[in-house]
């Protein structure tokens, strides 16, 4: 009994100790992993930038399985971290369960909406960014066939595909857009072999620009495109450098900006829904020294005009997530 009491006391003292020590912000990565060269890595870069600029410290944790979602969010909240940035659309139910128990902790959910007083939900207008790269793809294509490789077949990824197809068809209404998804389990984000095979299949169907929105699987897609001598388009982070000359551009999603802002705002940050669209600079396409030769001045001018039109509201890009249909298919 005595030993049990001592243990309980020391455990609570430990918990108290960490609670006082850490008012640091925290970042919980989704299943793709911290260095996926894409979505999660962008968040990591944002956090690192904040760390370098403010000299502050932050805590982070990588999830290994879906079963850990609630556990990790709770552990971070218990440890006193504030605010806590949680990555990934699959964490909406996680926060709906955890956030009400910690009303004094601010949470930031990236890529989904959780309607709670202490949660800021950051969503991105992926369809708008994909529209722009779809235009670039259509202008670069010589075969009038372009393609898309998605990870899991979920509304978020379908929104990428739909925006891409709309952009392509805005340039050329006869453009053929092939769409394939990798799978239905989380394995679909980490299967470069299958991604490569899908890309090869699309190239054999005539596609000469392949857009990958599939996490680690996308690396296999970009590789296969480079091997086949066709163009590819990266996603989330700037992936132009992976195969210079083959990666036409990357659909940027400024996740790093969202994380950086959340860390800067600190505890008690404003809750509600933040939409990172083209107007807010939350999405875009990548232009750097690796693809400078691939994007001609006319292509750039056309895309910039489309960007302005979307920001001004003259062009409306349909979001697949609103009604689960896509006008471009």
């Amino acid at each position: 009994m005595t030993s049990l009491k001592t243990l309980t006391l020391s455990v609570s003292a430990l918990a108290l100790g960490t609670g006082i020590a850490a008012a640091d912000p925290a970042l919980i990565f989704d299943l793709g992993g911290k260095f996926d060269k894409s979505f999660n890595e962008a968040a990591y870069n944002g956090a690192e930038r904040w760390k370098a600029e403010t000299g502050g410290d932050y805590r982070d944790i990588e999830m290994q399985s879906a079963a850990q979602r609630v556990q990790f969010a709770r552990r971070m909240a218990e440890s006193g971290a504030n605010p806590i940035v949680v990555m990934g659309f699959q964490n909406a139910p996680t926060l709906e369960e955890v956030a009400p128990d910690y009303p004094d902790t601010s949470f930031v959910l990236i890529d989904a909406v959780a309607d709670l007083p202490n949660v800021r939900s950051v969503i991105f207008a992926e369809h708008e960014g994909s529209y722009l790269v779809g235009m670039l793809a259509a202008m670069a294509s010589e075969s009038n066939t372009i393609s898309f490789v998605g990870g899991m077949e979920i509304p978020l990824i379908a929104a990428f595909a739909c925006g891409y197809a709309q952009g392509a068809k805005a340039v050329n209404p006869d453009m053929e857009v092939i769409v394939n998804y990798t799978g239905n389990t989380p394995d679909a984000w980490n299967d470069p072999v299958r991604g490569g095979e899908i890309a090869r299949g699309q190239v054999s169907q005539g596609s000469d620009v392949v857009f990958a929105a599939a996490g680690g699987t996308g690396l296999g897609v970009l590789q296969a495109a480079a091997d086949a001598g066709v163009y590819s388009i990266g996603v989330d982070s700037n992936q132009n450098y992976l195969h210079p000359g083959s990666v036409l551009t990357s659909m940027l999603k400024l996740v790093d900006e969202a994380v950086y802002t959340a860390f800067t705002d600190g505890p008690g940050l404003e809750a509600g829904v933040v939409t990172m669209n083209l107007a807010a600079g939350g999405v875009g396409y990548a232009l750097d020294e690796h693809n400078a030769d691939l994007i001609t001045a006319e292509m750039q001018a056309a895309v910039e005009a489309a960007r302005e039109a979307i920001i001004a509201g003259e062009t409306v890009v349909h979001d697949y997530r609103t009604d689960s249909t896509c006008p471009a298919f």
Partner: protein
Amino acid sequence: MDMATLAQVLDSTLRLATPLLFACLAGLISERAGIFDIGLEGKILAAAFLAAAIAFVSGNVWLGVLAGIAISVCMSLIHGVASITFRGNQLISGVAINFLAAGLTVVIAQNWFRQGGRTPSLTGDARMAQIDLPFAEALADVPVIGPIYNIFSGHALLVYLAFLCVPATWFLLFRTRFGLRLRAVGENPAAVDTAGVSVIGLRFGAVAICGVLCGLAGAYLSTGLSAGFVKDMSAGRGYIALAAMIFAKWRPWHAMGAVLLFGLLEAVANRFQSIEIMGLALPIQVMQALPYILTVVILAGFVGRAIPPRAGGSPYVKEH
């Protein structure tokens, strides 16, 4: 489906079936000797990682393949020591191998390359080259023969090796003394022991061969099919191979048929988002689940019975 599409799908089938075939034969040899091995997945993953890592560092893909085989054999021997020498539970040991590989590959890759648990992309000689069979170019325009010949041309060396392993495995198991003893040790180890042959030795031999084949499967994944290692890149292929092995009822030639079928299903699933068969639209999910459904059907005894080697899963205890 036109001819070109068919050729592309079959071409893809051969590539996708290759790692499954290596892994399936690996499991087959191990289980024929009475050692269940659900650690195929882990061994493939470990081999994929080390093959890519060594190929990147040395710039030579074949050194990478050797390293992949070496690590896979090491893990097989761990499985062997746990389940043969110490008579532990073979399933638990296999699961442990899977966890060990899933964790270690990422940690070591991060430590070596600092790219978040992946290896850098392989280029040039660090990747497995495709071998064009003689006259492939010349025959390309010949109707019927040309496209068919070209399906078989242009693959990595390991693809051809995998298919050569099928008759080799058959010969080893059914035409050699070693094979006879190996099968006997999976059915009735006491009889083998009585004949004065080492049960332990035979079983270790079987798991070592299993390790070599898994090593080839993993090396092909990371250096042949893709260009580098990504965490969890085996993506369940070790389990599909086990399913294929049961589907083939532990027979080498049937195993080849099973992996080709499963490879074809995957290739078709990759190519089409839905399949129309007699006016019925089959969603892609059905194709992806089919290998498992077929295996369950076989296990349930609808299409003949699948009887595993009788002594499978039980460690051998010498009588005194």
